[in-house]
């Protein structure tokens, strides 16, 4: 028997019917003759051969694009769903926050819901009572706790759900993309709480599309792609691989629209070679234009997503034919790693050149300062600094 808080998933497979039968008799009758020829049924695999071993106290961030099987995997870990093949073993008590209003009944008051939700998660009444005040305080529900939940705002409902799950003191906490609803200060307190729970030795599996939060909370990353574990390892490496893949998809998907054509985009160090942290960086663009146009040239650097770390913008006139645009950054504020150059040219009412990734480049320099767990750095920026300590 493994210690409490261990998750072992071995070769897990899960499939769904692509055309789900509606559960009506006439559809089911239609199924019968199809069932005689099983090959006719359209199964799609949601998870394929997923293997995962998580030790007690580990914090794992589950990432991947929509429909990659993250939520399905969480449901299988909570035993809500059975896998089609393979085996899953989760020891200890599992607290799950799969959806904001998962266990909340709108007709009941906040107080009644806390007890209901607690018992759903396997807690005794005495146990809930002893934590009741802390749950209410954490969720900031003091004035509303005896009000029916249907009169709560969606943020209050979300806080209620998170507070109950977080104060459970379970051995395993599974959290699916739920923090998005809360305001910034509540999100921060949720992250604090998750860090606290981790310090107590709880195993955390966290699903989020907010990569910065995953990086700030989890030490290990698991990237699911189309139901397959594409990468599993230290969160920084997995996120880098994932961001790179987003970039590739973006490059493939974005059919660059606009009257202008970007012929070439290059990012270099003035003395040649790769760019370096804190030193000058040169960006060179070659743009073809069919006519003389006014536009704002935007150049941004991102880690893969369309949201850049920083952005440079300049209004300009592009003459007919080819124009070479050069832009120099005097001191590059990026740590070592892989980055992407995004380019777009915009006029008042239309995109002359759509926002798209134009080039990728590797920066040579020091590693990004790792933030303490629970603190989320919005942008990976490298800032040179000098520290002094004096004893007056």
């Amino acid at each position, binding site marked *: 028997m493994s210690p409490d808080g261990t998750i072992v998933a071995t070769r897990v*497979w899960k499939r769904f019917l692509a055309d789900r039968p509606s*559960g*009506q008799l006439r559809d089911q009758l239609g199924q019968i003759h199809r069932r005689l020829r099983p090959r006719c049924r359209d199964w799609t695999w949601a998870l394929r051969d997923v293997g995962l071993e998580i030790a007690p106290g580990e914090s794992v961030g589950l990432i991947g694009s929509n429909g990659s099987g993250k939520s399905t995997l969480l449901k299988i870990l909570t035993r809500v769903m059975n896998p089609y093949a*393979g085996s899953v073993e989760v020891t200890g008590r599992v607290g799950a926050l799969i959806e904001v209003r998962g266990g909340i009944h709108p007709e009941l008051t906040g107080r009644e819901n806390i007890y*209901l939700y607690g018992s*759903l998660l*396997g807690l005794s009444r005495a146990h809930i009572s002893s934590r009741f005040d802390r749950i209410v305080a954490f969720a900031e529900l003091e004035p509303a706790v005896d009000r029916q939940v249907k009169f709560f705002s969606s943020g209050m409902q979300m806080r209620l759900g998170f507070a109950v799950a977080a104060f459970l003191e379970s051995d395993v906490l599974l959290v699916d993309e739920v923090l998005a609803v809360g305001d910034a200060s509540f999100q921060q307190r949720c992250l604090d709480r998750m860090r606290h729970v981790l310090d107590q030795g709880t195993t955390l599996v966290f699903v989020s599309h907010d990569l910065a939060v995953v990086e700030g909370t989890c030490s290990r990353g698991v990237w699911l792609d189309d139901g397959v574990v594409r990468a599993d390892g230290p969160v920084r490496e997995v996120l880098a691989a994932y961001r790179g893949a987003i970039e590739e998809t973006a490059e493939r998907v974005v059919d660059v629209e606009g009257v202008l054509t970007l012929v070439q985009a290059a990012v270099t160090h003035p003395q040649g070679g790769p760019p370096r942290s804190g030193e000058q960086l040169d960006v060179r663009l070659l743009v073809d234009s069919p006519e003389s146009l006014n536009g704002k040239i935007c150049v941004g650097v991102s880690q893969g997503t369309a949201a850049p770390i920083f952005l440079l913008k300049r209004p300009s006139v592009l003459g007919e034919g080819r124009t070479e645009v050069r832009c120099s950054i005097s001191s590059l504020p990026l740590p070592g790693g892989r980055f992407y150059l995004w380019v777009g040219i915009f006029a008042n009412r239309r995109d002359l050149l759509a926002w798209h990734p134009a080039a990728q480049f590797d920066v040579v320099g020091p590693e990004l300062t790792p933030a303490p767990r629970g603190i989320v750095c919005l942008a990976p920026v490298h800032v040179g600094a000098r520290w002094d300590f004096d004893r007056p």
Partner: protein
Amino acid sequence: MKPSVPPGPPPELRFKPRTNLAGAVRGVWRARQLVRTLAERELRARYKQAVLGFAWAIVTPVALMVAFSLFLNRFADVPTRGVPYPLFAYVGLLPWTFFSAALSNGGGSLLANSSLLNKVYCPREVFPLAGVVVAGVDGATALLALVGLFLLFGVGPTAEAVWVPVLLAVQVAFTVGITLVFSVSIVYLRDVRHALALVLQFGLFATPVAYGMEAVPERLRLVYSAVNPLAPVIDGYRRTVLFGQAPRWDLLAAGSLTAVVVLVGGYAYFKRLEGGLADVA
């Protein structure tokens, strides 16, 4: 670089859910507080905006009793062995209302709680069981009207009423079994929900609620009791509480046998199908 994965799992990997009834019963026992909380939730939510509140639990069987007394008894003179007909009918209506309420609450419970089923793990039986508990609370409330009827007609239960717990056990076993079967079937096949209303209407007439066991020819009673365990149970209630007789043990045995088969078989059926609930709900 995408890792290569075979197109399907090897057959020996197939996940086999363990259906161990003894373990499942232990699981439900551990979740008994959850059953209580869910039942409480049902009751609270149901009566939150209703003025009459718990009185509704009494109104339903009493209204049926009044209807039976006014119409049925007038046209078809039901033999009641000297017991006032309203009392005779109400003693049949109490178990029937419990059965019917349990089946409609519990039967639809998995579907009604599908949002919960998809998010939180718990033994799934708790939802239909909570429905049965709610019906039980309503039934206990409706007992008050029985006390009122006793006072009204100046009679009281006979000493033979000590057998009531035995009858109750058979009744609950049968009710729970049927509720489990319907609750899980409804999720897979939504038509069952419509069929359920029909079954309940039909059952009210196929069970000796408005009439007595005397309406059934003696040679058919054993088969009748085996098919519908509620018949010997209701007959037993009347014999023990109103007539001062012991239950018909032969009929009750036949009914109990069916009830146990339905309970065990229904539970096994439920456990077999519950694994796929999250896939279809």
